[in-house]
């Protein structure tokens, strides 16, 4: 087995909770909330891992922690043998780890032209180009945009076009890994396909390692090799994409899959309705943190927290009573 290119070990990210007078008076554990609460994950070179979760699951925070946009409160991050948790030279690291952001046009500096935007990585890293104009046009072409876009400003781009500029820019320095935060957010389904095809093509051409953050389950099968499902800052299930989609072992994963109706009026939907909403980060439930919403919770779930362990399949799940394949069929 090859050496993983990215290794996360018990990664913890904290945000300040209560501030001011209240914060001073509150017990220490309430002064901080854990947005990411101990995540371990290996990503192999050339692999695509999708991190799936709803709002508040900590998936975006995790991606930002990997390339140092938010500080780690604990744990280790190793990228290609470099310890990113020990004050690395971020300037150098970020040259090799590119990031794509959620808001396609909001992540483009509003007073720069597209040409400046795609050349920005070269400017940042002090790379002299013989013919910057040609390079910019080249990069845009890889992302499927014509040279007539070079002179435009971000507000003159549609969501899909802005997304393409983001892709062009992420590829500019030939990175080893790309962190893509919600690559389909804000895009209509008719455009979504084009962007995903673009990503897939580039991944194949450059042998890129990719971490995709998404809440869009529909795209998983077509972009990811493995999937990690997050809930309240922890991974609750991890496995091969087909296995997760066809035989989810965690009740939450299963509810998530079921909550995603297909555009087929004849399909019989077996619904699993979860009770209530995701709890706040400063009010984590006892035991298994999913138990108040879990349709199959038993009394001990409230007392004992499950650990991430092997599933009947090849994946990992943190549940005392994971769903077995045969149960799926009878349900």
């Amino acid at each position, binding site marked *: 087995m090859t050496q993983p290119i990215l290794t996360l070990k018990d990664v913890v990210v904290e945000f300040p909770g209560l501030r001011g007078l209240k914060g001073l008076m509150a017990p220490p554990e309430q002064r901080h909330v854990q947005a990411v609460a101990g995540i371990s994950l290996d990503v192999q070179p050339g692999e695509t891992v999708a991190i799936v979760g709803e709002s508040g699951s900590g998936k975006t925070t995790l991606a930002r922690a990997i390339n140092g946009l938010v500080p780690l409160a604990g744990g280790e991050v190793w990228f290609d043998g470099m310890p990113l948790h020990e004050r690395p030279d971020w300037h150098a690291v970020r040259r090799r780890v590119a990031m794509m952001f959620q808001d396609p046009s909001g*992540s483009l*500096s509003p007073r720069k032209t597209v040409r400046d935007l795609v050349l920005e990585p070269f400017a*940042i890293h002090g790379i002299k180009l013989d013919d910057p104009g040609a390079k910019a046009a080249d990069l845009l072409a890889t992302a499927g945009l014509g040279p007539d876009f070079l002179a435009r400003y971000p507000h003159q781009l549609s969501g899909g076009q802005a997304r393409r500029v983001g892709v062009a820019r992420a590829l500019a320095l030939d990175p080893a890994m790309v962190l893509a935060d919600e690559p389909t957010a804000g895009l209509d389904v008719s455009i979504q396909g084009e962007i995903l095809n673009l990503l897939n093509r580039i991944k194949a051409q450059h042998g890129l390692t990719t971490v995709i953050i998404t809440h869009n389950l529909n795209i998983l099968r077509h972009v990811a090799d493995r999937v990690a499902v997050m809930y309240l800052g922890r991974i609750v299930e991890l496995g091969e994409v087909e296995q997760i989609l066809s035989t989810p072992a965690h009740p939450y994963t299963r509810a998530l899959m079921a909550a995603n109706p297909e555009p087929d009026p004849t399909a019989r939907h077996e619904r699993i309705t979860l009770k209530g909403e995701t709890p706040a980060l400063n009010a984590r439930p006892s035991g298994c943190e999913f138990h108040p919403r879990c349709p199959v919770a038993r009394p001990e779930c409230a007392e004992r927290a499950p650990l991430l362990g092997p599933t009947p399949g090849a994946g990992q799940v943190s549940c005392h009573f994971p769903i077995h394949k045969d149960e799926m069929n009878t349900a």
Partner: protein
Amino acid sequence: MKPFRRTLAGRLLADPQAAIAMLIIAALVLAAVFADLVAPYDYSAMNLADRFARPSADYWLGTDNLGRDTFSRLLQGGRIALYVALTAVSVSALIGLALGMIAGYGPRWLDNVLLFSFDTLRAYPTIILALALAALLPRGLSTVIIVVVITSFSEYGRVVRTQTLSLKHAEFILAERAMGAGFGRIVFHHLLPNVLGPFFILAAMNLPVVITIEAGMSFLGIGVPPGTPSWGATLKDGFDHIRTTPWIIIAGGLPLILVTLGFTFLGEALRDQLDPKLRRGR
């Protein structure tokens, strides 16, 4: 090249309010530059035979208690007003810009310290502070400028800070950091251009405020040295003889009102043009 009517100046001229404003400001600048050529009399020449003269063909706006020509003095006053306003606004705006960006982009503790000092400086009512400092500092335009800078840079600082703070967490700044951009590049290439719009609007809106402060301080006798024909000093002369020379008050107040009106109109028009949110239509 964009056609003229689509440039900022072109769009401003198309707005009647802004056009009037620019006319007034142009008149002020011309008067200030050519005051000595245009003025019918030497602004400080006393003509005791013609004291308290009503407005006439000889003295368009009458004379004061020393027989000095009001019109000539007002022309000279424009020069003083413009000088003080431009100097004080540029100094305080630049200080405010620097501190505001430091507060907005710097570490949290520094932000708290700077914000607290902005709050503290705002607690001094301008004219009252001016009075207090007048007891300590020599009378003159530099004192006026110092008072204005002390009381107004915090306002720029506050606006720039808010703007910077909201941009600091914008995704495009995160994206820059994620690409490895350093502090200088983020601040000068990406924050600054987006902060300058509101900053210039504020500066334009502050010019008339500073002109008013200078006139006010001179009115109170703590601004320009005695004998200097600031608009405020002229008004004070009028006020001292309000029942005999009402024309000085009327004539002395008008340029002040016109100029502040002009700058305020211009500031508003600039804001409408530069701030796309406020532009009409979607």
